[in-house]
């Protein structure tokens, strides 16, 4: 029988441009882990942590096995450090793996650490482009953004989605990121500013693409008895799951995210969610390109095909709506590499704990959903259902 497991703490560092980061990898790690220990308080120290789950995509870090060279995970106490790499989803995969270890009774208190993976890259595109299937897809110069664009042009064609529709959902993220102390791009770009920003890879405009950020994020997981001792606001992990898709992008149907739809269906069945729009109070969805948020609404069953923009136009997924989504600004406004996938979980937990800063707190949020997306263009998805 699996034990109950809760998220009891969240750690962050300041988020800025990766090129402006003045801290080294270990200094960032210390700042992040210490902020999580301080968040929990009640005398929790590094020596109480039974294991660390380090999430990164090694190729971006410029070192062999970056978890070894980040010297702040209790190495002095011989604490085990596990490295999890599923590209951009690694934070979600590490969250799942850590949850399983605590649920199984192997560990009592663990930390899932999302590395600030991009601080050493001179041009992240060099590495992103090298992630494509090498024989046929990579020689076309196709990297993450191009692959992402295929899904969005197809979405436009299938449902008559307009440039303004994409700008609307981008503006929702930018508006809230402006008030999020842990966001990188806090400019609050409006629909008009977004539509006037340069086209990067059609149909994706500059303000509809995530930045290259620095900053690390972590969450502290604890078994039920430890959680009850250490916090008055535990966020229980109801279910976590992940899925994988083909490496070859050409194998995908480009009709939304069908693997995410299957994953969500199974996960919601498991926890008894029949109508996600009615039963989920808050969601953090991975949106490195703003339009992805629509494809995710639809795959997650928040609305029918082609109806994503309607949810934003009617304010249903905005603050005060039925199911607010991405009030952190999400990945669109802060993409510190793999940390961003841990952040989806951290920000969902903060909402459920009632500890969100900057006039973004959702009232009485009880059930949350955290999503991570990554690998080679949505090769992997993870979902976690969380509850106060």
């Amino acid at each position, binding site marked *: 029988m699996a034990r109950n497991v809760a998220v009891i703490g969240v750690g962050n560092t300041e988020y800025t441009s990766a090129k402006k980061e*003045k801290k080294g990898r270990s*200094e960032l790690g*210390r700042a992040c*882990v210490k902020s999580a220990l301080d968040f929990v308080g009640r005398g929790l120290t590094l020596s109480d942590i039974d294991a660390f789950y380090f999430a990164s995509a090694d190729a971006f870090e410029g070192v062999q096995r970056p978890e070894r060279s980040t010297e*702040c995970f209790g190495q*002095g106490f011989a604490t085990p450090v596990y490295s999890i790499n599923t590209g951009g989803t690694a934070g979600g995969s590490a969250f799942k793996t850590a949850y399983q270890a605590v649920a199984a009774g192997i560990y009592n208190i663990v930390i899932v650490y999302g590395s600030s993976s991009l601080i050493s890259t001179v*041009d992240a595109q060099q*590495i992103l482009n090298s992630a494509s299937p090498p024989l046929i897809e990579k020689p076309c110069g196709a990297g993450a953004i191009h692959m992402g664009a295929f899904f969005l042009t197809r979405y436009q064609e299938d449902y008559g989605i307009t440039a303004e529709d994409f700008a609307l959902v981008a503006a929702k993220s930018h508006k809230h990121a402006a008030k999020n102390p842990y966001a990188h791009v806090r400019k609050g770009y409006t629909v008009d500013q977004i539509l006037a920003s340069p086209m990067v890879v059609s149909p994706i405009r500059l303000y509809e693409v995530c930045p290259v950020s620095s900053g690390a994020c972590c969450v502290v997981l604890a078994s039920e008895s430890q959680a009850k001792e250490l916090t008055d606001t535990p966020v229980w992990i109801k279910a976590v799951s992940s899925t994988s898709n083909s490496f070859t992008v050409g194998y995908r149907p480009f009709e939304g995210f069908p693997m995410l739809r299957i994953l969500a269906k199974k996960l919601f069945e498991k926890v008894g969610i029949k109508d996600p729009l009615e039963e989920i109070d808050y969601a953090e969805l991975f949106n490195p390109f703003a339009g992805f948020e629509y494809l995710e609404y639809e795959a997650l069953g928040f609305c029918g095909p082609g109806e994503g923009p309607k949810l934003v136009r009617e304010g249903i997924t905005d603050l005060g709506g039925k199911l607010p989504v991405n009030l952190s600004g999400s990945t669109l406004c802060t993409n510190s590499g793999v940390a961003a996938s841990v952040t989806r979980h951290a920000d969902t937990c903060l909402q459920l704990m009632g500890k969100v800063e900057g006039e973004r707190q959702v009232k009485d949020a009880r059930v949350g959903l955290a999503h991570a997306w990554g690998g080679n263009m949505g090769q992997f998805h993870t979902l976690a259902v969380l509850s106060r």
Partner: protein
Amino acid sequence: MKADTIEKEWSLDFDFSSSMGETCTEFMEGLKEKKFLGNKIGGRTFFPMKPFCNQTFELPTERLESDGSGIVEAFTVYNKRPEGVAYPDSEISLSPPFIIAVIRINDSDQCFLHFLSGIDPNKPAQLLEKVEAGLRVRPVWAEERHGNILDIKYYEPIE
């Protein structure tokens, strides 16, 4: 039998650059001035200086300075010139065979590695005898120093 399969060659060539961090920067700046900097964290001493204690997360409370002299704790003889050492643009001033030593400064809780010259690596008996006694060594500084560990060309025994 079909014809041979096609062999595809490739290499990965990525550019990286990042801040060494505040403490490491301070240490490297010290090398330019022929100073080997250390610090105290929670009663323990570190040469070279360390940004924080990785057990307690305490920050340094005191900055320490030394001329870089220390004792050899362990060593090995390198018989081949190493390819792609930490700073490939820096000149290694020794020809193989040469010695790499583990050096401790002022009872530091942490040692560091550097080249050791002035002892004949072809005479292992002499080497063992000297190091067993806790051979005292001092840095030989490069004329031009750029703020990396090879600003010290190598270490040599203090006679």
